[in-house]
């Protein structure tokens, strides 16, 4: 019997009541043009895109709206609370986002990417305000996808507060430094999933290149959320495609189960039947014989 050359199908990513065909979530910010954004979103194969809530620009009646470039039948919108520095503002912005998405009849109306920042230079989250806003939004019926640092204890607290998904940063937002502390991410994954293996942990922020995405998935993350790495690449569409492939590669590599790392080599070709002799360096005899 010939084994199938196709790998077993991966499960779709489930986040609360939402099911996503792609494990990659992409942002819609920082693109040079909205046409370029649309092409990049398509190349990423993502089905979920983040959006921000801002004042309508009253002076620009001719201005195109972002939503003219996003196919709402294809993408679930994930509104964020970016730019909020306290819990009250974050709750206020989340509710306004829900109001807009309800009108659009987009399934993303009941969830939010919660982001409560502590400082505009590092864009690191304010943990106390994040926890407070998370609890309030959960009480208000939101499914909260919570941006946080890579602190395992904070991740546990957010899950306990009712967050639908915890989204630790690999490194600061937009920094492109990748996953700076894979050990923290390992601990977060272990703590949040030990009795709840389906609980979604999504790496959000810091991705710079495709290999960062693969590493996140190989560590066991359920999803990756990124924006700048595509939008500011020299060729955003090509980078979006790379991110898609890195998602598949990293996820399959995780599911397939990697070999353990060893200190010494292991020959790929058989030792048995060799017609040549070897120097016995490995048992030290060759080294000792020089004495």
């Amino acid at each position, binding site marked *: 019997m010939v084994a199938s050359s196709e790998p077993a199908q991966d499960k779709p990513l489930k986040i609360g009541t939402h099911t996503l065909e792609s494990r990659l979530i992409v942002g819609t*910010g920082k693109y040079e043009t909205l046409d370029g954004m649309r092409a990049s979103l398509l190349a990423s194969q993502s089905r979920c895109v983040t959006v921000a809530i801002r004042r309508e620009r009253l002076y620009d009646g001719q201005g195109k709206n*972002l939503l003219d470039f996003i196919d709402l039948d294809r993408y679930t919108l994930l509104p964020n609370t970016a730019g909020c520095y306290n819990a009250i503002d974050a709750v206020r912005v989340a509710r306004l986002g829900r109001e807009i998405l309800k009108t659009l009849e987009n399934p993303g109306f009941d969830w939010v990417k919660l982001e409560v920042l502590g400082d505009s230079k590092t864009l690191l989250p304010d943990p106390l305000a994040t926890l407070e806003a998370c609890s309030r939004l959960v009480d208000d019926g939101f499914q909260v996808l919570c941006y946080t640092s890579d602190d395992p204890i904070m991740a546990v607290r957010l899950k306990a507060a009712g967050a639908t998904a915890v989204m630790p940063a690999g490194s600061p937002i937009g920094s492109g430094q990748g996953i700076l502390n894979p050990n923290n991410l390992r601990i977060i994954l272990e703590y949040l999933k030990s009795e709840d293996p389906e609980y979604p942990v999504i790496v959000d922020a810091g991705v710079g290149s495709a290999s960062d995405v693969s590493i996140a998935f190989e560590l066991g993350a359920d999803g990756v959320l990124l924006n700048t790495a595509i939008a500011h690449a020299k060729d955003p569409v090509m980078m979006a495609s790379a991110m898609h492939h890195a998602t598949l590669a990293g996820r399959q590599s995780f599911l397939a189960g990697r070999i353990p790392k060893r200190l010494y080599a292991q020959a790929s070709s058989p030792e048995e039947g060799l017609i040549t002799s070897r120097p016995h360096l490995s048992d030290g005899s060759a080294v000792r014989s020089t004495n």
Partner: protein
Amino acid sequence: MLTIQFNGQPTSVPEGTTIEDLIQSAGIPSRFCAVERNLEIVPKNRYAMTTVEENDSIEVVTLVGGG
């Protein structure tokens, strides 16, 4: 005339102006927006019956690109 804060700008409007009037005169496509009056969300189906009052703070927001 009344003076209101409309997206942070002091704006003069006639008495009796509704949220619906404000949005239409600003040329905002209401499909893509949400409205807050003095920090309370105004549901879409109440735009036409909600009149603004002196010193009201009205915010009209929409979705923009973000990460």
